[in-house]
């Protein structure tokens, strides 16, 4: 696929159809890939890469890239296209300045995920069939690709692109991969257990803002938490309350807008499963207000800017009824 994409990018650059290419650039190791805007064939030749480690969602970069003038080619994975659409809906990306080329994705892993599986001192990674052969300082190791996937990819909602101008490779399908299983599990706990669980998770937060800054839905010109005039600005979680506050409000602000790309959890240096907060909102919205997938289209009304006269009352929560 990398070769096909590279050819496509060079061809479009050469023909003048696009001025820049948004893609991924190889790093020092096999896995440390950086989003990159390439301006020439030479740059592409030197560093363009597309492999199992291109997890970064590129859509958010298009907020700025699409306003720079000229046309940018953006390679988007299925889940990136949801974010892209959502940003189009919110008038954040100038659509006509972007040429979207959909690229297939079989799930993306990263160095952290491999290390969590006990791999140490990674020197090189090769793909052999459905396996990774990992060369390390301490010998070779083989790992099935599917075992190397992070949770967000194991519970992928769709391998289908919701928007593209051109598509490379086979189009995939929407999936039913049980992405609410972990939410269900948490819901089934006692409130005390849940409290202990989330307190444990959120207490690790170092307020680095990686989750917020990577999030395509968190695209505010200025975040309320950075704005001293907002009265709720906080630079560090100086009290456990602020950990809760930040993550509750962040999840609330992206509720109905979060496409569930899972970037928040990927980038969290403390491995807090932040996407489970967003998924809770998605699940609640689906059960209470009807199935809604943010980013699936560019026109539908988001659940929190919509209502029906017969909506559930907030007491549905207080009365403790498990929602169907």
């Amino acid at each position, binding site marked *: 696929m990398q070769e096909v994409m590279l050819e496509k990018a060079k061809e479009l650059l050469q023909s003048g159809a696009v001025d820049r290419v948004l893609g991924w650039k190889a*790093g*020092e*190791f096999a*896995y*440390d*890939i*950086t*989003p*990159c*805007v390439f301006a020439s064939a030479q740059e592409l030749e030197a560093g363009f890469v597309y492999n199992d480690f291109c997890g*970064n969602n590129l859509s958010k*970069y298009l907020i700025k890239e699409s306003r720079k003038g000229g046309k940018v080619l953006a390679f988007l994975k299925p889940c990136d296209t949801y974010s892209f659409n959502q940003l189009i809906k919110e008038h954040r990306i100038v659509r006509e300045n972007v040429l979207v080329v959909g690229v297939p994705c079989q799930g993306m892993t990263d*160095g*952290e995920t491999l*290390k*969590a599986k006990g791999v*140490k*001192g*990674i*020197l090189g990674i090769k793909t052999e069939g459905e396996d990774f052969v990992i060369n*390390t*300082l*301490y010998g070779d190791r083989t790992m099935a690709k599917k075992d190397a996937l992070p949770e967000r990819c194991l519970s992928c909602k769709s391998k289908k692109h919701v928007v593209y101008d051109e598509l490379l490779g086979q189009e995939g399908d929407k999936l039913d991969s049980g992405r609410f299983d972990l939410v269900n599990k948490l819901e089934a706990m006692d409130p005390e257990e849940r409290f202990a669980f989330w307190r*444990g*998770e959120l207490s*690790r937060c*170092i*307020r*680095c*803002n*990686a989750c*917020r*800054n*990577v999030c395509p839905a968190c695209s505010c010109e200025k975040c309320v938490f*950075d704005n001293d005039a907002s009265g709720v600005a906080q*630079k*560090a*979680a*100086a009290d456990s309350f602020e950990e809760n506050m930040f993550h509750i409000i962040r999840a609330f602000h992206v509720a109905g807008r979060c496409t569930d790309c899972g*970037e928040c959890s*990927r*980038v969290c*240096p*403390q*491995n*807090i499963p932040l996407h489970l907060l967003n998924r809770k909102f998605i699940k609640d919205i689906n059960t209470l207000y009807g199935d809604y997938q943010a980013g699936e289209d560019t026109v539908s009304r988001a659940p929190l800017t919509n209502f029906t006269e017969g909506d559930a009352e907030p007491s549905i929560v207080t009365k403790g009824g498990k929602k169907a």
Partner: protein
Amino acid sequence: MRKIAKEKLGALLAAVGRDKPLYIPALDASGQARFTRWHEGLEMARALNTVRSAKDFFFPQTENLVDFKVKGKQIEIIDPRSEQEDFVLFGVRACDARSFEILDKVFLADPVDTYYQSRREHGTVVTLACTQPEETCFCSAFGIDAAAPEGDAQVWMDEEYLYLSARTQKGDKFLESVRALAEDGGEDAVQRQQEETRRVMAKTPLAGLNLEGFDGEHLNPLFDSEKWAELSQACLGCGTCTFVCPTCQCYDIRDFDTGDGVRRFRCWDSCMYSDFTKMAHGNPRLTQVERFRQRFMHKLVYFPANNDGQYGCVGCGRCLSKCPISMNIVKVAKELSKEVR
């Protein structure tokens, strides 16, 4: 040199942790290591390093500086500090141990930061030599020997024994507190382990990282390099690199309205943040390129220029593993070295 049988590790920790706070690397719920207050039964993590560095214990992320209590139209000023108690940090790696030297140069230089100073004075750092470095390790680029960590006391561990050696008076006191468990000897085993570690270390991909030319002499060409724009292009402006960094020492002082007064506290700041060093007139570094440049220029140029060539980095590799977009000091150094060689 003293040695303690490995099965007595629990007893060793208990001997220290019984009467003063002892912090050891332990796995958190997500399976990553962090320095955790020891309690009976807490197991020491075998991970190479903690996610958060050991600097937390001397320079915590948030620290209360002063309280103002408001009663009607009266204001009372309260120093919130209580007596600092002695504590022990056990299992600090060579890189983090070196980071204290760097932090000391900032906080203990005149005017002395008394909050930091008090913690430094009361903290005993017991280091643990590395045996299995990661590909992200590049402490050797800064002259750090992962096999011979600094600190008040040093510990090497193999399958049978822990080997201990004191480097300072605090280290002596630490060894004294575990005297009953220890016996003499172990120099040979330590030496064997060190050789092996150094051998592996030499094979790590970043072992040859060359920082030649990163100094005050080359400040201008480095500062003016056109590479910064490209390097910072994908930077999200988050604070991950700075917050996991053992040497980042910038902080902000903020006021929190408690309802009946104000709590003035400091908290880590990040040069990657858009409001970093924002003053009444505005922000001196308005773009992410400038802020990004600041971080690396500080570590690789300004700091050594002001501190006898000592870099503001210890090569722990945390930012390499944690940066959401995998941009880091190694990539920056490699790219920019072209400007000075």
